[in-house]
């Protein structure tokens, strides 16, 4: 993991996390929603273990694996983008952001294929409570991925015009923090919904 460590001056601790504090308030609110969602999933499962286990088997774990790897890689690319802009390398930063966006597109494509599969099988939110949770949770997350990509794209555009510098790159860190949050949520969502039984 050492390669991923932030390039801040060593030993110096900050009072605030990277990026604008406003996004962190937002991130906390979002995490709270997901936390409640996860907990309700788990407790609803508790009362319908059979049902949940049965339908969990119908999900496509290969697709989910690809998506997990896509998001982790993408998050890593974003870390590199932040590292680049901290050294003032705007164009390198843009390239890493584009790479991250590419992984985001991959995620969306795979997930859309999964949804297409479900919908053609006539599955929807009202099918049963497992699919209710599965579709709600993943779709809610899906929209976050889109949102995160819009933010990253906006950051990339501004970076391309040279809008960030060594001194002022809060925007990049802000977008990055949001993207990591999207990744973080998926990391819990994946085992919880696809694997654990």
């Amino acid at each position: 993991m050492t390669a991923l460590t932030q390039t801040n001056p060593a030993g110096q601790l900050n009072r605030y996390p990277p990026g604008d504090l406003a996004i962190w308030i937002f991130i906390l609110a979002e995490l709270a929603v997901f936390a409640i969602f996860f907990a309700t999933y788990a407790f609803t499962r508790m009362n319908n273990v059979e049902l949940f286990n049965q339908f969990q088997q119908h999900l496509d774990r290969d697709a989910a694996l690809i998506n997990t790897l896509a998001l982790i890689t993408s998050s890593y690319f974003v870390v590199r983008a932040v590292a680049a802009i901290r050294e003032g390398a705007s164009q390198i930063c843009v390239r890493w952001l584009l790479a991250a966006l590419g992984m985001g597109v991959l995620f969306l494509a795979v997930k859309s294929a999964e949804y297409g599969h479900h919908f053609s099988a006539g599955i929807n939110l009202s099918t049963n409570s497992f699919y209710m949770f599965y579709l709600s949770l993943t779709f809610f997350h899906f929209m976050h991925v889109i949102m995160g990509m819009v933010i990253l794209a906006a950051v990339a555009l501004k970076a391309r015009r040279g809008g960030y510098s060594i001194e002022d790159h809060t925007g990049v860190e802000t977008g990055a923090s949001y993207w990591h949050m999207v990744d973080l949520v998926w990391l819990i969502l994946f085992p919880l919904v696809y694997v654990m039984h």
Partner: protein
Amino acid sequence: MNEVFTKSMARNIFYGGSLFFILLFLGLTFDTTRQLPKLDNRQAITDKVALGKALWEENNCIGCHTLLGEGAYFAPELGNIYKRFGNNKAAIKGFIMSRPKDGIPGRRSMPQFNFTDEELDAIAEFLKYSSEINTAGWPPNIQG
């Protein structure tokens, strides 16, 4: 990093976040609209039910009663009144007809609306339709 928390970022979160959730809400509304025919008992809507609903509204029944739990809390819930009265439309009609014009001393009473028989029938039909909407098991018991 002189400013850890900027107004423009707060503004962006407000606009972005609101748009995000408006879209999500519209998406759920879309799905709800597609699912509704299975739940809302729309096949039971006849001209009579429509007349019943119009009478329900034009006499402001919601000003005292609740219907599926919404309305005023002064008089009983009517979403399941058809069932509470033993699936009997005549009982509903009889009750509405029999209300004394000047009320009951010291107690709450429904006004006398002087409905025609056709109107009473329509109201009862509307309440029957309402009682057959799929309300996810609410109310908890027959008392409403």
